[in-house]
């Protein structure tokens, strides 16, 4: 019963956190990106203004589009992406920590992408279709390294602990792996972290992996026909997804908290942990989104597919092997 109440209130809470901080991070990212290019850039609150403007506009549905899919997908996309935050620790334990685990988070992470793809397809525009199929190709390509990373970490944990909830993010965050492995393990973990940091911008389809949108090439790609509030929904869900990816990286690799070094009352601890989480998430986003997208140019889709299927996959398997070696020696 308490859990029911918790999930209702928690849902409202994560909706607020996800949307506000997602848009905020987006603003910061744009600002820093501009600074790195020696520009002034928009104000940090610009994403909020963008959303507001999109909501004022008329919502156009193209003639050939399948309306019900076309209009439903933006909403479902945002709903599903926010729901991931119910399972991800953000400094404090996740709200539904005992009701879902890491594999669930992985699958939920697919949902917003699938919604975007279906929305793009449903708009019946060739540009949108091309963009959507590229997004799908990227999804299938990064799945292997991502799965290797996650399974490797959990497998290594299961060699140390025999708890029945090893797959929950709560458990993984409470037992950081860095402390429990030898030299090989640390190298292996570092490699896996690198893989995850490569996968993050691909998951978020940011430059250099923004082939699905690629304004200069296919006119906005899978969002080509979207306008008004539908586009606004996708805009917000992209922002929330950034927070989600960052918090997954944080939970898997940097779950450390700083509240135990102070002696404040518990609710202050929560605030401190949450603030520290926001800082860690910011660092992750800065490293794997802002810096990367400033420094590289867009790749072609078959280059991305090849890169993910061969070098990145091999790297991730090497990481797994090193973790395995760590249990032997």
């Amino acid at each position: 019963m308490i859990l029911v109440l918790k999930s209702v209130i928690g849902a409202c809470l994560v909706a607020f956190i996800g949307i506000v901080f997602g848009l905020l991070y987006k603003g910061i990212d744009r600002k820093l990106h501009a600074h790195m290019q020696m520009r002034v850039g928009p104000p940090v609150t610009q994403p909020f203004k963008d959303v507001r403007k999109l909501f004022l506009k008329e919502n156009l549905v193209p003639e050939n589009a399948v309306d019900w899919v076309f209009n439903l997908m933006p909403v479902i996309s945002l709903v599903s992406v926010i729901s991931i935050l119910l399972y991800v620790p953000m400094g404090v334990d996740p709200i539904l920590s005992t009701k879902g685990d890491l594999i669930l988070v992985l699958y939920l992470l697919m949902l917003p992408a699938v919604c975007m793809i279906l929305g793009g397809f449903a708009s019946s525009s060739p540009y949108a279709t091309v963009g959507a199929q590229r997004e799908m190709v990227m999804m299938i390509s990064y799945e292997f390294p991502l799965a290797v990373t996650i399974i490797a970490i959990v497998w290594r944990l299961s060699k140390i602990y025999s708890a029945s909830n090893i797959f929950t993010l709560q458990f993984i965050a409470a037992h950081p792996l860095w402390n429990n492995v030898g030299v090989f393990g640390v190298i292996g973990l570092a490699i896996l972290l690198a893989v995850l940091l490569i996968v993050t911008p691909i998951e978020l389809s940011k430059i250099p992996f923004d082939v699905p949108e690629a304004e200069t090439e296919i006119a906005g790609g899978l969002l080509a026909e979207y306008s008004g509030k539908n586009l606004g929904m996708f805009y917000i869900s992209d922002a929330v997804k950034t927070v989600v990816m960052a918090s997954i990286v944080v939970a898997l690799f940097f779950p450390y908290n700083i509240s135990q070094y102070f002696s404040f009352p518990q609710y202050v601890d929560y605030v401190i942990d949450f603030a520290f989480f926001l800082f860690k998430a910011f660092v992750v986003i800065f490293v794997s989104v802002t810096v990367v997208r400033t420094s590289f140019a867009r790749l072609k889709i078959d280059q991305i597919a090849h890169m993910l299927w061969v070098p990145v996959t091999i790297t991730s398997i090497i990481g797994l092997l090193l973790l395995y070696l760590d249990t032997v020696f």
Partner: protein
Amino acid sequence: MIGTLETGYGVWSALYWLLGLVVLFIIVYFIYSLGGKTVKASGDKGKPFLSGNEMEKEKIHVKASNIYWGFTEALKSYYTPLKGGHTGNINDYVSWFVVVLAIVLILAGGL
């Protein structure tokens, strides 16, 4: 607790997720309804953007075999032999069966 699946190392309950989803749907739909009205466009406004080209309806639809170009292109060296292996010839079906039979017999014999 009904609806909670224990997998030995993990856990999953669809009902709580759905509950969260319903709450989130209400919130998101509220935000969504704040936006401008939805219009089914017609005429020039409703045509897909094609950089100014005029196209027939049939040609606009991207066909199934053209989808996932990037994927098949990147994995060409995997797909070419695989497609070649599926000859549709009944002799080959039987040969594969015989090959697997031989391998399994060797492996099972070596137990």
